C-alpha cells in the first residue's frame, strides 16, 4: 500500500508537518485556509487603510503638496482595488471557507486541494498587483500628453512606482496605452485577472460543496442564511467573472498586442469597456455585500433570542438581489451618453433592487422587535451594519433617479454612498462576524469592553469621515482629483480627523485581538447559546470538524436540541440541554473512532506560483526574459498539475 502511495508522488515527498510553517504552506484544511484568508485580508486592510490615511492627510488642505498628482492617482486607485479585491472579498472568503462545511455538517469542502489553490492564487495575485511598486524606473507618470490641457505635468514626481492609477474601473481610453503609458494599468489588468481565477475556483468549489455535502436532513430551506449567501455569491462570481476576464483581456491585448477594441480613432468603442466592466462591476457590489448580510442574519437572531423573522423571505431576497443585480449595470453610466430609453429602463430596474433589500432590512428589524436583546459586541456591529447600510441604501436610491444622478456623478456624494454600503455595511458586518466567530477558531473570547470601544470609535469616526462627503459632493467637490476648492476646506479637515479616529479604532481592535487570542477568557462550548451547527462542536474546532456527522431535523438544528417552547411560543431550555452540550463536547474532544482527513499537498502552492510568472511574462513579452517567464510559468503549472493528478487526496490508512 505505502509503496503505491510513494510511487504516486515522485516529484515531492508527501508533506507530513501538522503544525508550524510548512503545515500552513501545504494545508488543505478549510479551517486553516479560512484563517490564512483572514490574516492576509487583514494585512491588506491595514495597507489599504494606510493608503486612505495618506490620501486624507493630503486632502486636509486644498492646496496640499503632500502627494504628487501621479501618486494621488496611484494611491486612490490602489486603495479601491485593495479594499474591494484584497480585503472585502477575501475576508468574506475567510468566513465562507471556515464556516461553509461547519454550518452544513460536513468535514471539508468538496475539493480541499482546489480550495488551497484558490488561496495561493489570491495571495500571489495580490502580491503581483502590488509588485508594480518596484517598477517606478520604467513607469513614466500617468497621462503625460504634452499640450493637452488638464493633463498632468510631465515632470510630476512619482514615488509609488507603477501602482495601478486609472481608477479601479480603468475607463478607456484614459487607461489605454496613449494616455497611460506606464506599466500601472498592465499590473492592474493582469493582477485582477489572477484574482479572478482564484475567485472562480472558489465559486465552483463552494457551489459543489453546498449542493452535495450537506448533512443528512439539511434540506435547502434548512441551510443557514450565511451559507445561502455564500452560494448566491458563488453564482454571482460564476456568471460575472468571465465577463470581466474578457474585458481585462481586451485591455491587455489593446495595450500589449495592438488590438483596437477601445481605440476610438480606429473605430473602436470606449463605451464597450464601460458596459463590460459594469456588467461585472455591479454584481461585484453584491458579491461584496451579500456575505456581510449573511453574517448579520446569523448574529441578530442569536443576540435577540428569537429565530430569524421570515427566514425564507431573507433567503429569497438575497437571491433576488443577485438576480436583479445583472440588470442594473448601466446606472453607472447615466452620464456616458446612453439613450434616454436606456436611462429610464436602468433607473427603474435599479429602484426595484430596493424591494428585496428592504425585505431584508425589515426582517432584521422584525427579528429584533420584542426580542430580549443582548448588546454584546457582535450585536453592536450588526446594528451598526443595519443603520449605516440603510443610509447608504437610501442614498443609493437617489442615484437611480437619473437627473439627480447626473448631478451626483463623479462627486464626493458617490464616495459617501459607496463607503456607507461597503464600510458601514460590509466591513461592519465582517467585523461583527469576527467578534462572533472568534471563539470558534481560537477557543477564547474577545474582550467585550474593548470590542465596544472599537465599535463606538468606528461608529463616530466613520460618520465623521463619510457623512460630510454627502454635502461636500452636493456642493460640487469632484472625486479623484488631488485639488479642490478652498471654500470646502473646513469639512475636509473634519473628514481627515474622522479617518484617524477610524485608525485608532482599528488599533484598539488589533490590541484586543492579540491579547484575547493569548489570554482571553476560555470560551468552552457554545458561548453565545447559538442556533447553528458550528457551535455544536468544541472550540477551537477539531481538525475533523464533526466526530459524528450530524442528522438535521429542522432549521436552527442546534437550538432545537437545547430548547423547546411553551404555549405562547416562548423558548424554554430543555432540562437535558446541558447534558446534551456536554456530550457533544466530549465526543468532539475524544472521537469514538479515528477520522481520516485529506493529506496536505505541495501542489496547490506550486501551481499557483505559475500564474504570476506568466503575468510578468506578458508584461515584458517583448524581451527574451519575458518570453522565458511565460514558458517557465506554464511549465511550473503543468508540472504541478501532473503531480496533483498522480497524488491521491488521501494516503492509504
Amino acid at each position, binding site marked *: 500500500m505505502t509503496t503505491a502511495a510513494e510511487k504516486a508522488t515522485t516529484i515531492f515527498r508527501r508533506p507530513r508537518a501538522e503544525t508550524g510553517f510548512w503545515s500552513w504552506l501545504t494545508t488543505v484544511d478549510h479551517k486553516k485556509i479560512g484563517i490564512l484568508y483572514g490574516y492576509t485580508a487583514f494585512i491588506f486592510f491595514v495597507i489599504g487603510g494606510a493608503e486612505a490615511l495618506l490620501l486624507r492627510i493630503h486632502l486636509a488642505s486644498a492646496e496640499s503638496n503632500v502627494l504628487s498628482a501621479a501618486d494621488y492617482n496611484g494611491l486612490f486607485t490602489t486603495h479601491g482595488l485593495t479594499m474591494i479585491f484584497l480585503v472585502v472579498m477575501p475576508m468574506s472568503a475567510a468566513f465562507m471557507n471556515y464556516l461553509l462545511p461547519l454550518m452544513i455538517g460536513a468535514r471539508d469542502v468538496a475539493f480541499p486541494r482546489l480550495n488551497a489553490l484558490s488561496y495561493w492564487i489570491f495571495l500571489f495575485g495580490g502580491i503581483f498587483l502590488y509588485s508594480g511598486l518596484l517598477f517606478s524606473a520604467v513607469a513614466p507618470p500617468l497621462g503625460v500628453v504634452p499640450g493637452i490641457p488638464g493633463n498632468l505635468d510631465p515632470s510630476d514626481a512619482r514615488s509609488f512606482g507603477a501602482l495601478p492609477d486609472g481608477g479601479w474601473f480603468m475607463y478607456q481610453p484614459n487607461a489605454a496605452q496613449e494616455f497611460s503609458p506606464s506599466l500601472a494599468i498592465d499590473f492592474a489588468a493582469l493582477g485582477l485577472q489572477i484574482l479572478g481565477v482564484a475567485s*472562480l475556483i472558489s465559486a465552483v468549489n463552494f457551489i*459543489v460543496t453546498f449542493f*452535495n455535502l*450537506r448533512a443528512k436532513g439539511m434540506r435547502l430551506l434548512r441551510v443557514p442564511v450565511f451559507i445561502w449567501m455564500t452560494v448566491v455569491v458563488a453564482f454571482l462570481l460564476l456568471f460575472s467573472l468571465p465577463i470581466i476576464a474578457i474585458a481585462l483581456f481586451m485591455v491587455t491585448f489593446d495595450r500589449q498586442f495592438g*488590438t483596437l477594441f477601445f481605440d476610438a480613432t*480606429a473605430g473602436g468603442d470606449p463605451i464597450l469597456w464601460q458596459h463590460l466592466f459594469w456588467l461585472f462591476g455591479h454584481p461585484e457590489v453584491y458579491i461584496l455585500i451579500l456575505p456581510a448580510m449573511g453574517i448579520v442574519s446569523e448574529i441578530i437572531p442569536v443576540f435577540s433570542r428569537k429565530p430569524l423573522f421570515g427566514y425564507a423571505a431573507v433567503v429569497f431576497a438575497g437571491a433576488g438581489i443577485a438576480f436583479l443585480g445583472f440588470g442594473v449595470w448601466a446606472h453607472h453610466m447615466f452620464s456616458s451618453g446612453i439613450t434616454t430609453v436606456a436611462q429610464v429602463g436602468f433607473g427603474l430596474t435599479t429602484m426595484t433592487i430596493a424591494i428585496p433589500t428592504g425585505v431584508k432590512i425589515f426582517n432584521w428589524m422584525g427579528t429584533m422587535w420584542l426580542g430580549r436583546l443582548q448588546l454584546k459586541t457582535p450585536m453592536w456591529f450588526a446594528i451598526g451594519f443595519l443603520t449605516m447600510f440603510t443610509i447608504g441604501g437610501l442614498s443609493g436610491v437617489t442615484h437611480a433617479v437619473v437627473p439627480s444622478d447626473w448631478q451626483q456623478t463623479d462627486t464626493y456624494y458617490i464616495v459617501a454612498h459607496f463607503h456607507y454600503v461597503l464600510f458601514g455595511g460590509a466591513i461592519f458586518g465582517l467585523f461583527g462576524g469576527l467578534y462572533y466567530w472568534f471563539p470558534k477558531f481560537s477557543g477564547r473570547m474577545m474582550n467585550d469592553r474593548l470590542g465596544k470601544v472599537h465599535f463606538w470609535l468606528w461608529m463616530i469616526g466613520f460618520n465623521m469621515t463619510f457623512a460630510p462627503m454627502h454635502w461636500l459632493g452636493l456642493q460640487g467637490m469632484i472625486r479623484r482629483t488631488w485639488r479642490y476648492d478652498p471654500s470646502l476646506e473646513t469639512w475636509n479637515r473634519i473628514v481627515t480627523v474622522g479617518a484617524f479616529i477610524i485608525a485608532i479604532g482599528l488599533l484598539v481592535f488589533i490590541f484586543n485581538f492579540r491579547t484575547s487570542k493569548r489570554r482571553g477568557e476560555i470560551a468552552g462550548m457554545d458561548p453565545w447559546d447559538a442556533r447553528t451547527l458550528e457551535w455544536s462542536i468544541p472550540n477551537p474546532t477539531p481538525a475533523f470538524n464533526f466526530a459524528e456527522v450530524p442528522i438535521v431535523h429542522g432549521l436552527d438544528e442546534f437550538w432545537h436540541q437545547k430548547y423547546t417552547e411553551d404555549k405562547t411560543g416562548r423558548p424554554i431550555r430543555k432540562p437535558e440541554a446541558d447534558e446534551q452540550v456536554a456530550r457533544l463536547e466530549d465526543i468532539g474532544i475524544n472521537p469514538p473512532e479515528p477520522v481520516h482527513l485529506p493529506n496536505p499537498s505541495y501542489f496547490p502552492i506550486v501551481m499557483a506560483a505559475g500564474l504570476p510568472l506568466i503575468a510578468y511574462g506578458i508584461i515584458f513579452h517583448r524581451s527574451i526574459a519575458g518570453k522565458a517567464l511565460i514558458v517557465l510559468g506554464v511549465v511550473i503549472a503543468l508540472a504541478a498539475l501532473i503531480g496533483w493528478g498522480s497524488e491521491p*487526496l488521501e494516503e492509504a490508512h
Partner: protein
Amino acid sequence: MTAAAHEAQSPHQDLHESTGVENRKLAMWAFLSSEFLFFGALITNYLLYVGREFASGPKPSEIYDIPFTSVSSFVLLMSSLTMVLAHNALSRGDQGATRTWLLATAMLGSVFLAGQVFEFTEFITLENMTLATNPSASAFYVLTGFHGTHVAIGVIMLLSLFGLSKRMGGLTNRQFLNLELVGLYWHFVDIIWIVIFTVVYLLTAVPGAS
C-alpha cells in the same frame, strides 16, 4: 491498489452527495456555465462591430471562406460523434475501442486546429488582415483564438487519457468519470463552435465578397 481506489474509499468521498451527481461532474457543469458567459461576451464584442465601417480594411466578414470553414466545422462536429463512441466503448468495457475513438477525437480536433491555423495564415498574408487592422478583426481573432485555445486544451486532455489508457492497459472506474468530464468539455467546445460558425461566420458574411 491504485490511487483511484484509495480516493473512492475515503470518508470524505463517502458523504452522500445530496444531488446524486458526482462532485467533479457538478463542478464541470458549474465551470461550463461560466464559460458560456465567457464566449457570450466575446461573441457580443464581435457583433458590436459588425455593422460599422472602418478606415482600414478588410473586415473578417468580407473575406470569410465559407466553404472551407464549413468543412472544418463538419470535422469538429464529427469529433463529438467519436467522443460519444469513446464513451460508449468504455461503458461496454472495450478498452481497445475506447483508445481508438479517443485518438480519433483528438485527431479530428487537431484537423480543426490546423484548419484554423491555415485560415489565420491566409487572412494575415493574403488579405492583410491582422489583429491591428480594425476592431472587427481584433474581435474576430480574439474570439476564434480563445475558441481554438479551448480546442487545443481539449486535445491535450484527450491525448492524456489515451496515453494513460495505453500505459495502464485500460481506464479504471475513476477514469471513466474523467472521460465523461473530458466529453462534457469537448461537447461544450463544439456547441460554442456551432454558435460561432452560425452567428459570426454565416450570418455576418458579406455574400460574394471573397
